[in-house]
């Protein structure tokens, strides 16, 4: 094959997870993209591999008091507390909006109890969403969230419970605030997860030294942004070594090069989070960056890069 042939060869960015085909490996990180509406002015949602929504619960949640965010060096803390309008509004308003685009829809699911998770999962299963991402890793709520995500036994239990109620493929979203991410990943796999996503935010704190008080009303918040990327890449790598199910990697991805680190570490898809706040077209830049790398390095299929590190 000569160089000319190489260059005109079509690049394949398609990936499969849980039997769903995504046109490219880039989605949004839950909670950083709303349900896509606000960013649809900046990015053609149909160009994305998938839109992953903010966490959805049975009833509307008001979230935490403000301040809810704090800037940190190379990152940010958030303690939104999973404010969301509830599943009814999601199904009536957000889902039809998302369905008007040619992209896959991943809905992030939250609950205070296992029953609440199951209820949301069951109702979404009847809808036109493509996949469900079970958030057992939010550090900013008193009940639910991270409480389910730090103990392998509970991870396996909640996974197999929601699995029963779901007709859609299930992604379990893992917390990085654990000693052994491989063990947690295996628990999710054992519970029947179709995929895992990681990392959710790392628990952090900022103190306002002038007021001598916590900066966030919630005291603690979740750390995200480029600051955490090395931890996220390490955990994706360790999880990829531990399980066979596909991985959606995230944590500090700002551009295509960052995304490629995750893919090479073993992620089949990547999610762009905090970067959206800094650059509303970040998702597009990530997609373009991956593609440019593939062209430059003559990679015909993104699958050649998944987990290729050190091989």
């Amino acid at each position: 094959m000569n160089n000319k042939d190489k260059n005109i060869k079509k690049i394949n960015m398609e990936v499969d997870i849980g039997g769903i085909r995504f046109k490219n490996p880039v989605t949004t990180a839950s909670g950083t993209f709303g349900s896509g509406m606000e960013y649809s002015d900046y990015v053609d949602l149909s160009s994305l591999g998938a839109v992953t929504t903010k966490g959805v619960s049975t009833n509307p949640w008001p979230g935490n008091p403000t301040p809810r965010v704090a800037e940190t060096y190379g990152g940010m803390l958030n303690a939104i507390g999973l404010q969301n309008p509830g599943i009814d509004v999601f199904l009536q308003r957000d889902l039809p909006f998302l369905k008007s685009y040619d992209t896959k829809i991943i809905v992030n699911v939250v609950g205070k109890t296992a029953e609440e998770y199951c209820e949301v999962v069951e109702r979404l299963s009847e809808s036109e969403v493509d996949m469900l991402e079970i958030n057992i890793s939010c550090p900013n709520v008193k009940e639910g969230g991270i409480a389910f995500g730090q103990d392998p036994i509970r991870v396996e239990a909640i996974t197999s419970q929601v699995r029963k109620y779901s007709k859609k493929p299930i992604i379990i979203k893992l917390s990085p605030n654990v000693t052994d991410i491989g063990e947690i990943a295996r628990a999710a796999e054992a519970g029947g997860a179709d995929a895992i996503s990681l990392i959710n935010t790392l628990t952090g704190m900022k103190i306002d030294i002038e007021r001598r008080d916590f900066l966030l009303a919630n005291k603690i918040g979740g750390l995200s942004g480029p600051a955490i990327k090395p931890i996220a890449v390490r955990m994706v790598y360790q999880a990829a070594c531990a399980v066979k199910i596909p991985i959606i990697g995230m944590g500090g991805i700002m551009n295509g090069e960052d995304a490629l680190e995750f893919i090479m570490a073993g992620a089949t898809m990547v999610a762009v989070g905090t970067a959206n706040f800094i650059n509303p077209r970040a998702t597009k830049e990530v997609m373009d960056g991956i593609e440019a790398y593939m062209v430059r390095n003559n990679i015909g299929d993104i699958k050649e890069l998944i987990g290729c590190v050190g091989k």
Partner: protein
Amino acid sequence: MSLADKIRLKIRQQDRLEDGVYDLWIEAKDMAATAGPGQFISLYCNDGGRLLPRPISICEIDKKEGLIRLVYRVIGKGTDEISRFRSGDYIECMGPLGNGFSLEDKKALIIGGGIGIPPLLELAKQLKCEKDIVLGYRDLTFLDKDFESYGNVYLSTEDGSVGTKGNVIDAIIEHGLTADIIYACGPTPMLRGVKEYAKSIGATAQLSLEERMACGIGACLACVCQSKDLDHHTNVNNKRICKEGPVFYADDIIL
């Protein structure tokens, strides 16, 4: 609606107004064309350690020259960095954002406190009706001269060095000012006082609020304030300051 894109804009001029308060003119033709009083702009730092936007209200709009004026106080490392920009430098901006004030043709009282004063200047300029302007400071005044051509200006200072000794409400009472509508921006305690005062004189009030932000465009739900009624978008008693605000009718929100 034209898109509030994130772009690099050229700085026309930057001056220091008083200790720690800066006056920045940005070449922003498209923004100037669509922006209204009370809207704000997200400024971004060059230092990669600081990623989140600094929301700053629009102080003046020069549509003819295509300029936007921002007046801000240095309170942390971000505003400090921005204060070092010089004419000819570029700054990353996104805007205009938020709703801005609704201009109503009623006898108006414009009330500004401290660094809440700048967004009221363009408002004072655009409001063509009868109006009084009350500006409250801790000690040193700034921008007050700029307001004089647009209405009667009353000042208050905490130390009494200029105008009424006390706060804006003290000045209003001293001068017996009334209105059918109040537009206000300033620290939360002041806004609480304004809300109460508006109620006592039966006026409506538009208040411009502040909260820490991340996205600036309504996606992250960082910047909410509590609303009296269920908000249409959020389906809870929360409104997004960056999107439904930063200006709210006093009756709609809980301060």
